[in-house]
C-alpha cells in the first residue's frame, strides 16, 4: 500500500508537470486538443491524489507502523475516528490532504466551468497544475507521507492528544476546504491577467467560487474557536496565536474581495484592487501554511530544521514576483470604467470597509511575523500577544461594525443628507437608548458602551432594511407580508443574504463583548464536600474519579452546581491522561451553556487522589451568541450563494435544417 501511495504521488508529479506544459503549449499554438488534454490531466491528478489518500487511510486503519507517518501519528488503541483524522494530524499527511482537496476542487471547477470562459481555460488549467505541481513536489521531495522506517515498531506514538477531539476532526476539513477553494478564483484571475481578457464576465463567475470557500473558511475558523474554547481550558476562544491568525488573514482579504467585487460588477471600478485582493487571499493561505508548518515562528533557527520551509519560501517568492510582473504588464487593461461620484455613497462605504479589512489583516500579519522580524533585525525574539492585537484591532473592528450599520443604508453613486437622516433616525435612537440603559445599569467603561451601542445601531438598521423592503413591496404589489418577504428575498438574494451575514456578525459581537468585558472567574483548591463560588453560582466538589478509555484514562471531578438554592445538575470537568503522552494531559472542561451565560469549569490539578483538587471556574456572559452568530453568518453566506446557475452564454445549437439551407 505504501508503494501504491508513493507511485500515485510520482505519477501525480509527472501528470501535473505535463499539465503545465500542455496548457501553455496549447494556448500559444491554438491547439484545442492539447488544452483539452491539459484539462484531463487535472482529472488524472484528482484521481491520483484520491488513490494516495485512500492508501494512507488504509495504512492508518491497518496499523502499518513500518510507515513513518503512521508510526508517528497513530497507535493500535487509537479510536477509529481519530485514525481517519490522523490523515491531517501531521505535516506530511496534511500536505497530502491538501493536494487531494486541490484535486477535488480542480475537477469540480473544470467540469462545471469548462464552457463558461473558453478563452481563459488554457491558463486556468496551467495555474491549477502549477499549484498542484508544487504540492506534489513538496510531498515527494520535502515530506513524504509514505516513507518507510528501516524496521517495524510494535506500536505507534499516537496522535497528539490535543487533536483527539471531535472538533479537531471536523475543523481542519472546513479550514482546508476554505483555504484551498481560493485556488479556483485565483486561477481564473491569473488566467484573465495573463491572457488579457479582463472584462467583467469572469468576475461574475468567480464570485460564487469565492463565496463557497469563504463559507467553508468561516466554518473552519468557527469550529477552531469552538475547539479552543472546549479543549484549551483558559476560558477564551481566540488567542491571536500564529496558527489562528494564519486562518484569519485570508478570511479578511477574502471578505474584502467579496465586497469590492460588487463595485466592479456594478460600476466597473477597482479592477486592479480586486485582482490584488484575490491574489493576496491565495498568497496568504500559502503563507499561513508556511508559517504554521515550517516552525519559523517558534524561531528563525527552527526554520532550517524543516526541509519544506525553503521550498515554501521559494514558492511564495515566485508567486509574488510573477504576480507583480503580470500585473504591471496588464495595468493599462485594468483601467476603471467609472470614477467615484461622491464621497458619501455605497461605493465609498464598500471602499472604506475594504480599507478596514486590509488594515486588520496588515496589523495581524505584522504582529504574527513580529517574532521573526525582531529576531532577524535585533537578534532578540519579541513576541506580541493577545493584548496587542485586541488593542490595535479592537477599535478597527468597532469602526467596521459601524460601517456595517451605515453602509447598506447608503445608495449607489450619491447619498443625500436628508434621506440619510431619515434612514439613520431609528438606528441612532436605538443606539442611544442602549447606551443610556447601560449607564443606568452602572456601566461606565467606554468600550462596552461603544460596543453595545454599535450592536444596537447595526441590529436596528438591518431590521429596518427588511421592514422597509417588505413594506415597499407590499405597497407596489399588494402582497401579504410573508409573501412580500419571500419575494423580496428571492429577487434580491445577494443583498438580503448579505444582511443575514451582517446580522450574524452583530450576534457574534455580543459574544465577543460579553466574554471580553464581563467574564468572571475564580479559582480554589477544594477537598471533597467543600464548595466555591463564581458569579452567582455555587459549586460543590464531591470527589475525584477515574474512567478507563481505549487509549487514555479520564480523571474527572464530580461537581454539583447551584444557582441560589436551585441545583442545576452535575458537571464533570476532566483531564485525559494518554498512555503514550502521560506528560501532556488534556483539559476537558465542563460546560453548562446558556443564552445568557456559560458556566465553564476547569479541573486544574489535584493532589492525594483529589484531596484537594484545584479548579478554575468562569462565567462567560453571552458566549452562546458567538456560536449562534457564527452559524447565522454561515447560513447567510449560503443563502447569498444559493442560486440556480444561470447561463450567461447563449448556447448556439446548430439546427440541421439551417445548416442544410446555408449549405
Amino acid at each position, binding site marked *: 500500500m505504501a508503494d501504491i501511495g508513493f507511485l500515485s504521488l510520482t505519477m501525480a508529479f509527472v501528470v501535473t508537470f505535463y499539465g503545465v506544459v500542455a496548457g501553455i503549449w496549447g494556448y500559444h499554438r491554438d491547439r*484545442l486538443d492539447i488544452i483539452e*488534454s491539459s484539462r484531463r490531466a487535472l482529472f488524472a491528478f484528482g484521481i491520483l491524489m484520491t488513490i494516495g489518500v485512500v492508501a494512507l487511510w488504509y495504512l492508518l486503519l491497518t496499523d502499518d507502523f513500518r510507515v513513518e507517518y503512521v508510526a508517528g501519528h497513530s497507535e493500535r488503541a487509537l479510536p477509529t475516528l481519530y485514525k481517519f483524522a490522523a490523515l491531517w494530524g501531521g505535516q506530511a499527511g496534511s500536505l497530502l490532504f491538501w493536494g487531494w482537496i486541490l484535486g477535488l476542487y480542480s475537477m469540480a471547477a473544470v467540469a462545471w466551468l469548462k464552457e463558461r*470562459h*473558453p478563452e481563459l481555460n488554457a491558463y486556468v488549467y496551467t495555474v491549477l497544475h502549477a499549484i498542484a505541481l508544487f504540492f506534489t513536489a513538496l510531498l515527494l521531495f520535502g515530506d513524504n507521507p509514505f516513507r518507510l522506517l528501516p524496521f517495524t515498531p510494535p506500536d505507534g506514538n499516537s496522535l497528539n492528544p490535543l487533536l483527539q477531539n471531535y472538533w479537531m476532526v471536523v475543523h481542519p476539513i472546513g479550514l482546508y476546504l476554505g483555504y484551498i477553494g481560493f485556488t479556483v478564483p485565483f486561477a481564473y484571475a491569473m488566467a484573465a491577467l495573463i491572457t488579457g481578457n479582463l472584462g467583467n*464576465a469572469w468576475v461574475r463567475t468567480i464570485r460564487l467560487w469565492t463565496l463557497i470557500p469563504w463559507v467553508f473558511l468561516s466554518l473552519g475558523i468557527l469550529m477552531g474557536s469552538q475547539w479552543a474554547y472546549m479543549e484549551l481550558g483558559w476560558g477564551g476562544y481566540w488567542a491571536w496565536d500564529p496558527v489562528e491568525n494564519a486562518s484569519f488573514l485570508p478570511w479578511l482579504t477574502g471578505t474584502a474581495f467579496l465586497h469590492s467585487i460588487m463595485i466592479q460588477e*456594478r460600476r466597473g471600478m477597482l479592477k486592479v484592487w480586486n485582482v490584488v485582493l484575490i491574489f493576496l487571499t491565495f498568497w496568504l493561505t500559502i503563507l499561513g501554511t508556511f508559517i504554521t508548518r515550517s516552525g519559523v515562528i517558534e524561531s528563525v533557527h527552527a526554520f532550517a530544521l524543516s526541509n519544506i520551509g525553503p521550498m515554501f519560501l521559494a514558492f511564495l517568492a515566485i508567486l509574488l514576483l510573477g504576480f507583480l510582473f503580470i500585473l504591471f504588464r496588464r495595468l493599462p487593461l485594468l483601467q476603471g470604467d467609472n470614477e467615484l461620484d461622491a464621497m458619501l455613497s455605497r461605493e465609498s462605504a464598500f471602499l472604506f470597509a475594504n480599507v478596514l479589512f486590509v488594515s486588520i489583516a496588515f496589523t495581524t500579519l505584522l504582529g504574527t511575523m513580529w517574532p521573526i522580524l525582531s529576531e532577524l533585525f535585533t537578534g532578540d525574539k519579541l513576541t506580541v500577544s493577545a493584548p496587542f492585537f485586541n488593542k490595535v484591532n479592537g477599535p478597527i473592528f468597532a469602526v467596521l461594525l459601524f460601517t456595517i450599520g451605515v453602509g447598506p443604508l447608503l445608495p449607489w453613486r450619491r447619498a443625500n443628507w436628508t434621506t440619510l437622516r431619515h434612514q439613520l433616525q431609528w438606528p441612532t435612537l436605538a443606539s442611544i437608548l442602549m447606551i443610556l440603559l447601560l449607564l443606568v445599569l452602572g456601566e461606565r467603561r467606554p468600550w462596552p458602551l461603544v460596543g453595545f451601542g454599535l450592536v444596537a445601531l447595526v441590529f436596528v438598521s438591518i431590521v429596518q432594511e427588511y421592514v422597509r423592503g417588505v413594506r415597499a413591496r407590499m405597497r407596489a404589489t399588494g402582497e401579504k407580508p410573508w409573501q412580500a418577504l419571500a419575494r423580496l428575498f428571492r429577487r434580491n438574494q445577494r443583498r438580503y443574504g448579505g444582511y443575514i451575514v451582517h446580522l450574524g456578525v452583530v450576534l457574534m459581537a455580543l459574544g465577543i463583548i460579553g466574554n471580553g468585558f464581563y467574564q468572571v472567574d475564580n479559582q480554589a483548591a477544594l477537598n471533597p464536600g467543600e464548595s466555591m463560588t463564581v458569579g452567582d453560582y455555587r459549586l460543590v466538589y464531591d470527589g475525584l474519579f477515574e474512567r478507563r478509555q481505549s487509549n487514555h484514562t479520564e480523571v474527572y471531578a464530580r461537581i454539583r452546581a447551584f444557582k441560589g438554592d436551585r441545583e442545576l445538575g452535575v458537571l464533570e470537568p476532566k483531564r485525559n491522561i494518554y498512555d503514550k503522552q502521560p506528560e501532556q494531559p488534556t483539559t476537558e472542561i465542563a460546560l453548562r451553556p446558556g443564552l445568557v451565560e456559560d458556566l465553564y469549569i476547569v479541573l486544574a490539578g489535584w493532589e492525594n487522589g483529589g484531596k484537594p483538587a484545584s479548579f478554575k471556574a468562569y462565567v462567560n456572559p453571552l458566549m452562546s451568541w458567538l456560536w449562534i452568530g457564527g452559524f447565522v453568518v454561515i447560513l447567510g453566506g449560503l443563502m447569498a450563494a444559493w442560486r440556480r446557475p444561470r447561463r450567461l452564454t447563449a448556447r448556439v445549437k446548430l439546427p440541421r435544417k*439551417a445548416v442544410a439551407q446555408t449549405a
Partner: protein
Amino acid sequence: MLEILIIAFGILVAAGLFIFIIQPIWEGSALLAKEDIPLPVDDLDELYAKRDAIYEAIKELELDYQVGKLSEEDYKRFSADLKRQAAEILKRIDEFPKQQAHIRRYLEAQIQTIRAAMGAPVTQPVLARVPITGREGKTPPKFCTQCGAPLRPTDRFCSQCGARVTPA
C-alpha cells in the same frame, strides 16, 4: 505475489490515465466535430454580463428609492442614466450578428473536418480571428485594389495611393 499485484495496479492506472489524457490529441478532429463545442462568443458574453449588471442596478435603484434611500431627483437622474446605458447595450447585442454565429459555426466544422481528413493538426477555430464588421458581414479588403498596399480594417482611403477603399 503482493508486489506483482502492486506493479500490475500501477501499470494499469498509469496506462489508463495516459490514454485518458492523450486521447484528445490522438483523435482531436473527432472531438471538434462534436456538436457541443461552443463557439467563441466572448464578446457577446461580455455584453450579456454588462446587460445583466445594468438590469440588476436598475432593480436595486428602484428598491433603494422605494425604501427612501434616494431623493426623487437623484432617482430620476440615475434611472434615466441606467436606462440609457441599458438601451445602448441592448442595441449592441442586437447588432451582434446572431445569424453569422450559425454560419460561422457550420463553416468552422467544415474546415476542421477537411483539415482533419487531410491530416492537419486541429487548431482553435480559424474563423474566430476574422473580425465581424456589421449586419452585412462584409469584411474590409486587406489590400488596396489600385496599388496593392496593405490596408488597416478601418481605412477608408489607401494610405499609399489615396484611392477610395471599396468593400469587396
